């Protein structure tokens, strides 16, 4: 079976599991909402200020959400002992990782797309005219978040204190993504909007570097 087909089956399985319970998406949505509301207490969210700080807060909230949401990705398999069954399947081990990455990417993107209008209303930002550019940045940033997050979820699931460990491993590695996506979002929300090619290229290279790394070394994490 080709990697893509096997990954597709894993992806379908992940989506089915999630949409039967819907617990992950609902919890994460509310979590990000809480973070966005709490941020509004740390400074005065008037129009001018929020244009400067808003994108950074939004991305920080997404990063926090990711570091919590990606936790069960491998933990769930471990508690049910289903990872061993997946490993026994006659498929390339990377396809397990790839399928989970794709699923996590979709979950995160869904959360972000739902919360974007909420953020726009609460922080008084016009996002409709620049929606395509924003979606591009969201997608690129989320690929980086989902790639490293899925691999580190597999890393943390094998250690003690794993709930605490995942954010600890993930957040410093994601600092470049935070900077790049915040800076490009600020540029897009500026008047007139500008799409920073430097940061888009940077985000793309981050994604390529870690996708390649995950492809090369990720399967070692699935060994027994």
């Amino acid at each position, binding site marked *: 079976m080709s990697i893509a087909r096997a990954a597709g089956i894993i992806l379908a399985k992940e989506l089915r599991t999630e949409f039967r319970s819907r617990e992950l998406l609902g919890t994460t949505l509310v979590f990000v909402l809480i973070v966005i509301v709490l941020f509004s207490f740390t400074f005065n969210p008037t129009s001018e200020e929020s244009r400067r700080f808003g994108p950074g807060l939004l991305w920080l909230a997404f990063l926090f959400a990711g570091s919590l949401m990606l936790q069960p990705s491998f933990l769930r398999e471990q508690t049910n002992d289903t990872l061993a069954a997946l490993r026994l399947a006659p498929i390339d081990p990377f396809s397990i990782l790839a399928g989970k990455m794709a699923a996590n990417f979709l979950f995160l993107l869904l959360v972000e797309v739902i919360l974007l209008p909420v953020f726009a209303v609460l922080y008084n930002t016009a996002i409709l005219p620049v929606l395509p550019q924003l979606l591009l940045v969201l997608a690129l940033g989320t690929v980086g978040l989902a790639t*490293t997050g899925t*691999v*580190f979820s597999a*890393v943390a699931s*094998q*250690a*003690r*204190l*794993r709930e605490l*460990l995942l954010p*600890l*491993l993930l957040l*410093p*590695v994601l*600092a*470049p993504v935070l*900077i*790049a996506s915040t*800076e490009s979002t600020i540029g897009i929300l500026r008047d007139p909007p500008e799409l920073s090619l*430097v*940061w888009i290229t*940077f985000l793309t*290279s*981050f994604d390529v*570097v*870690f996708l390649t*790394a995950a492809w090369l*070394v*990720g399967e*070692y*994490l699935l*060994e027994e």
Partner: protein
Amino acid sequence: MATEAQSQASSGPAISLPSILIVFLLLAAASYAALIWAPTEATMGLIQRIFYFHVSSAWSGFISFIMVFIGSVAYLRTRALKWDWLAVASAEVGVAFFTIVLITGPIWAKPVWGIWWTWDARLTSSFLLWVLFVSYLILRTLLDEPERRALVSAVFGIFAALDIPLVYFSIWWFRTQHPQPVIGDGGSLAPRMGYALLMCWAATLGVMTVLIRVRYHLEAMRSEVDAYRMNVSRNG
């Protein structure tokens, strides 16, 4: 069960007397060069002399982190635990060097800039690098089984090392996009200052090598003891 390679690695002293002597002489020479022989900087005065140890520690810390990458990749390829010992030894020494960087930096900055810390590109990226490898070391303490620890932390070590250039580029672009006062001399060093810096680098490289060897040796002994312990418990 201890393999032959393991017992070999841990038999005999970790470092020879001559190598300690050489590092000691290098350190003495570097201290003399940095503290007495190099000219006093015109505007900053004596405090500038901390620069020689600061910069050379950063360079040696960098090399240690690159060795974490080498050790991690080699472990995944060969599955020989000695590469994992190299990775953990280098990570600890690298973190120690970057701790020196992060402590000497503010000591220098307070009298020269008037503040302990500024979110300048180089400061921020050194700080982030330090955090990155501290989390690598924490990850190691949370994994019990030696082979599993070696494998999992090798994967994280590779990811952390790949992140180093990305961290540097992103912070550099981020900070240079924002206007800020010109910091540091930016000019060229006096020849003697350059030589003193190189002397200091040679000395810190020597210290780095000795420390990594000692730590590697310690890890080898630990692994041997673990193997014996496991053997005893298995055989009753």
